């Protein structure tokens, strides 16, 4: 099962990170980054099947595919920003992690602008009847 593989990688990464941290603190940041990347790469095929299912459902239910694409992009941005900010927090740089999250929020807001405009148009149309 995928879960056991992920847990195994996570625990091995933590143990190795601790051992390396004693001897070479500057190399100790590489091990968590690599284990996080390995786990993410393991999840990617499952994630792509979920996303295609999500798109099919949206197409059948008649939702505008542009909005669904934006939602998927926002999920991707959130996914990556979480990955990067957790790594920075691991290394002890919580201020950099906060800035990465701020940047991610800004990107998500700009990505979601068309949706907000669409919503406003819809409501104004409804109210104007």
């Amino acid at each position, binding site marked *: 099962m995928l879960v056991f593989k992920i847990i195994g*990688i996570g625990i*091995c*990464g933590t143990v*190795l990170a601790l*051992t*390396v941290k004693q*001897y*070479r603190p*500057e*190399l*100790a940041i*590489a*091990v968590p*980054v*690599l*284990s996080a*990347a*390995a786990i*993410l*790469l*393991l999840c*990617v095929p499952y*994630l*792509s099947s979920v*996303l295609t299912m999500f798109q099919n459902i949206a197409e059948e239910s008649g939702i505008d595919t542009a909005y669904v*694409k934006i939602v*998927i*992009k926002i*999920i*991707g*941005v959130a*996914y*990556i920003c979480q990955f990067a900010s957790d790594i920075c927090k691991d290394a002890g740089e919580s201020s950099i992690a906060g800035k990465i999250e701020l940047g991610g929020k800004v990107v998500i807001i700009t990505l979601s602008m068309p949706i907000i405009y669409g919503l406003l148009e819809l409501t104004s149309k409804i109210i104007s009847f």
Partner: protein
Amino acid sequence: MDGVDLIFKVAAIGILVAVLNVLLVRAGREDQAMMTTIAGLVVVLLVVLREISELFNTIKSLFGL
């Protein structure tokens, strides 16, 4: 599965550099000890860089970013 092997490789490099460092310092060659530390750091960063770029490319293609 290549990601998992990389973790062990990087950990092995880290411990190897630490051992080499102690040996060289004990042998009285501090400058070479510094060299091996920097060399180990560069190798590890290159490995991490390649793995992260592969991750970002898959995420980019997956989410259409």
